[in-house]
């Protein structure tokens, strides 16, 4: 910030490439539509105008995994849906992140039985877990902001 003020008149800012790339990644991260159950309603509410997710760069949600970088798994994942989830995760281009939204995606939630996967981290690696049943829109936004802070501190050497 200090550098900007000093050189503001000249229109020049100095930064590292890592910081610039990470900043731009957080400013336009497109989530993939993966609303499965009740948490999807809260995700839709967060995307709508009252709690706006476009302020965080998520202007639109791409249904295609090839055009998105963030997968918000919103809702319970059944055992039959698990290979489909993994396939869609594999189809996303690098760099990609996963937010597991809600209790069912994080740990199985209220469903401790044969049909529901006990946490989506059995098939995909998760970056941020958002708790709640369903999490309030502010909760999801807090999860997104936490993810952004993690992305801002990523180093190039860590990218797989």
């Amino acid at each position, binding site marked *: 910030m200090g550098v900007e003020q000093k050189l503001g008149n000249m229109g020049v800012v100095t930064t590292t490439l890592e910081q610039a790339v990470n900043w731009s990644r957080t400013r336009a991260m497109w989530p993939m539509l993966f609303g499965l159950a009740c948490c999807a309603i809260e995700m839709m509410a967060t995307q709508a105008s009252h709690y706006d997710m476009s302020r965080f760069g998520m202007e639109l949600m791409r249904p295609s995994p090839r055009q998105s970088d963030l997968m918000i798994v919103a809702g319970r994942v059944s055992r*039959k849906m698990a290979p489909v989830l993994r396939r869609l995760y594999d189809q996303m281009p690098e760099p990609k992140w996963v937010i597991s939204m809600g209790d069912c995606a994080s740990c199985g939630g209220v469903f401790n*039985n*044969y049909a529901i996967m006990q*946490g989506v*981290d*059995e098939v995909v690696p998760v970056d941020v877990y958002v708790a709640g049943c369903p999490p309030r829109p502010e909760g999801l936004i807090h999860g997104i902001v936490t993810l952004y802070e993690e992305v801002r501190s990523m180093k190039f050497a860590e990218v797989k």
Partner: protein
Amino acid sequence: MLNLRVLMDKKLQAIVQKLEKEFGATASEYRGNVTLVIPAEHVEAACKKMQELGFELLSAMTAVDYWPQENPRFHVIYQFTSVSKNLSLTLRVPVPGINPGLPTVSHLYRNANWREREIWDMFGIKFAGHPDLRRILMPADWEGHPLRKDYPLGYEEPQFTFNFEEIDLRKPYAKE
């Protein structure tokens, strides 16, 4: 038994009497719904008879597991509705627990196809003559039949703070 006859519809009464005589069924009635218990060897003939008597719709088909209280263990329940006569009737078929099986009725009632697949998936009752008997709700390579009473109720041990680490070591996390 007197109450039973008084409450039933006249048409239904005639049908119930016919089925009782032909298949050795026992009738019971609860809040206006009539149930007939039919032995397993007469299932296909009884369903054919129901179709002839005007019950063109198999509205529901399911199964119950009464282990360990009752033997035979499974009851397969067929619920028929006659749209033309505005009647409904239920058939119960007791099925023993060892090698449970019944003849299929999917050639008589087309919608029995998926319901028999669901009963196979959840209870393990095989339907002889079914064109495509495979799992419908669980993944294809699943072992076990979940809705039986001896299938475990929960899937994993809940993690509390005192056993968090030991369960965490056993949890199947995904590789990247």
